[in-house]
């Protein structure tokens, strides 16, 4: 898969119809134009991570990352179903974005400096503040990650987890054996077969993968959080309009929660004459149009997927099988660090 992508990428970059020297004269189509022409948003997601992006029993993609894409589609087409989901493994994801196979990568991807600068993409915000942790069998009677000296650790390749793991064991002067697999499923299977003592990943992912184990209650997540993993959507570098659109779609969801706009009350709230609500709903000003969207863009987004808090609860929070506490992901005025710039 990756090889095919790489070759496509090589050809796309090499034989692009707009050669570098001709770019001045023939202006290439913007991402928004090509999405509209296609009638579909192409969205890169995981190969099945419950809570973030996974197909449900009817084959519909659901999850927090999926909701971001649905929100973008709703803002553009007023139809959250106009999304083509492209499942990608951790190591294929950036090539898919670079090559133009997907318009936005919404796949629990950690925002780091090197990814932001050298991969030809830009992160648009943080959908989930995460950290890396360890999942172990309760029968091992391990209570802290510092007791993991000489353990065998399963990790998914192409992730920041692989490097954080190396850093953590090195700085604590512990030995370990790492076995890296290319997909999350293979990694979990190896952990379950007993090949590894420990499975390491972002903590949200540990909770999600634990649900797939035969007896989830036999496994526990250790208390240590060894890294910062701000997860967010990523777009291709060089198209500022598209960058703004994706960025503000997420900000709109967070602002909606802050202002108390929910999927249920969105139509009543739209009639309100509070100035900040009038700006959000486009009855005052033309903020949606500045983004290349319509004036009622926030109404469309919230009607389709709800506000950030609703999406969080439905997919990963109290209303979901994962039951992860909001924690850091609470709004800034409720003790968390989720914060969006104002719409004005």
């Amino acid at each position, binding site marked *: 898969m*990756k*090889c095919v*992508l*790489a*070759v496509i*990428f*090589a050809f796309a*970059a*090499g*034989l*692009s119809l707009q*050669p*570098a*020297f001709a*770019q001045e004269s023939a202006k290439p189509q913007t991402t928004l134009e090509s999405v509209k022409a296609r009638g579909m948003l192409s969205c890169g997601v995981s190969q099945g991570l419950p809570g973030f992006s996974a197909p449900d029993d009817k084959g519909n993609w659901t999850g927090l990352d999926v909701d971001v894409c649905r929100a973008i589609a709703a803002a553009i087409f007023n139809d959250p179903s106009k999304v083509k989901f492209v499942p990608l493994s*951790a*190591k*294929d*994801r*950036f*090539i898919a974005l*670079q090559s133009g196979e997907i318009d936005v990568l919404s796949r629990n991807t950690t925002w780091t400096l*090197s*990814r932001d*600068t*050298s*991969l*030809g993409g830009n992160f648009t915000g943080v959908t989930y503040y995460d950290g890396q942790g360890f999942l172990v069998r309760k029968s*091992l009677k391990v209570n802290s990650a510092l007791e*993991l*000296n*000489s*353990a*065998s650790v399963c990790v998914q*390749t*192409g992730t920041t987890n*692989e*490097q954080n*793991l*190396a*850093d953590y*064991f*090195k700085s604590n002067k512990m030995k*370990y*054996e*790492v*076995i*890296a*697999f*290319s997909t999350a499923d*293979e990694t979990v*299977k*190896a952990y379950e*077969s*007993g*090949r590894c*003592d420990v499975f390491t990943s972002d903590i949200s992912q540990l909770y999600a993968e634990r649900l797939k184990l035969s007896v989830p209650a036999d496994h526990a997540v250790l208390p240590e959080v060894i890294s910062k993993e701000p997860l967010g959507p990523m777009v*291709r*570098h*060089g198209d500022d309009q598209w960058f703004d659109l994706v960025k503000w779609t997420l900000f709109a969801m967070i602002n909606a929660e802050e202002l108390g706009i929910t999927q249920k009350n969105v139509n009543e709230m739209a009639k309100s004459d509070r100035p900040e609500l009038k700006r959000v709903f486009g009855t005052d000003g033309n903020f949606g149009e500045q983004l290349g969207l319509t004036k009622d863009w926030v109404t469309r987004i919230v009607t389709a997927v709800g506000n950030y808090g609703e999406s969080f609860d439905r997919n990963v929070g109290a209303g979901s099988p994962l039951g992860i506490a909001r924690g850091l992901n609470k709004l800034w005025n409720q003790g968390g660090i989720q914060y969006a710039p104002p719409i004005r």
Partner: protein
Amino acid sequence: MVAEPRKPPPRIFLKLRRALGGKAGWGGLALQVLFVAVLVWIGYEIIDNARGNLAAQHVASGFGFMSQTAGFGVSQTLIPYSETDSYTRVFLVGLLNTLLVSVVGIVFATIIGFVVAFGRLSPNWLISRISGGYVELVRNLPLLFQILFWYLAVLGALPGPRESISIFDAFFLNNRGLVIPKPIGHEGLVAFTVSIAAAVIGCLLLRSYSRRALFQSGRVVVVWPYVLALLIGVPLATILVFGIPVTFEMPALKGFNFSGGTRVTPEFVALAVALSTYTAAFIAEVVRAGILSVHKGQMEAGASLGLSRGSTLRLVVVPQAMRVILPPLTNQYLNLTKNSSLAVGIGYPDLFSVFAGTTLSQTGQAIEIIAITMGVYLLISLVTSAIMSFYGWRVTRSMGG
């Protein structure tokens, strides 16, 4: 009046024209030059465009990343490696792992392949049916499926480290692999190695002496007592003089895993077993075809000389069959090497997994890394072909063909 004969153009000139222009002469040569020029131009345009577009997209390019710190661990390394080493080191680690599994795979695939082929040709009904069944079963199942079968179903079913199957308290088999005592060299090791080499050379000299005696004067010289004395006596004497050359570090269960000793990982075993059994099925068919291509009169001739069936096969039939076997056998070796990239499915850190996988996703430099990886697989394959061609040339020459 005698006409001055026209002077023929120099021979080298003619040769050059024929080689480059073919039948079309100079016109053909011009066309070829034009064709090469167009190819070079297209190649240049592709590279130039790629560079321009990558720069416009702000994707890093160039080979500078090779000296950056890798920052991730690798489970099996043949050379010392730590997380602080560079991507170049990762590349070497991956390359050596690929070569290791390929070489081990080729050796075992050849042995199993030949055994199964002889089994299939055996007059014994049971042996020939079992061999036939093996070939049909193994070559008709997908290789990735077989690798996963060995990894998850066979090796994954072994007990954990604490319930290891122990052999003499020195070898431990569990689902983390096979732990064996690790040899540690001492000062006597060099002398010991030299003494063994000397003993082996001595044995070879004895062998050639006895052969000469047999062929030239028909004397049968019994050398095996001397060979034994050399092989056992000389190293033993060195041990007495220089001390014990090697001691073994015994593995012991400590914490989660065994510490001490050395370990063969289940990923390596699963991959090597799957690759060699799978390729062996094809090699068996190649060898069988080669042997059947030798006229059965050769077999009968061997029998009438009083040679046993085994000796006839070894001395008469197989050398002739080798000419037919070698080219398709080379194909199988190349397939095995390339198939080793399926390692990525079970987490064996081969070149494709650590370099075209992890390194690629960390640096995002797809074009450079895929180009290097393709180049390396091409090189490995070409070297394998060259070795096999050389061997084929020697076989043909020794048969005067």
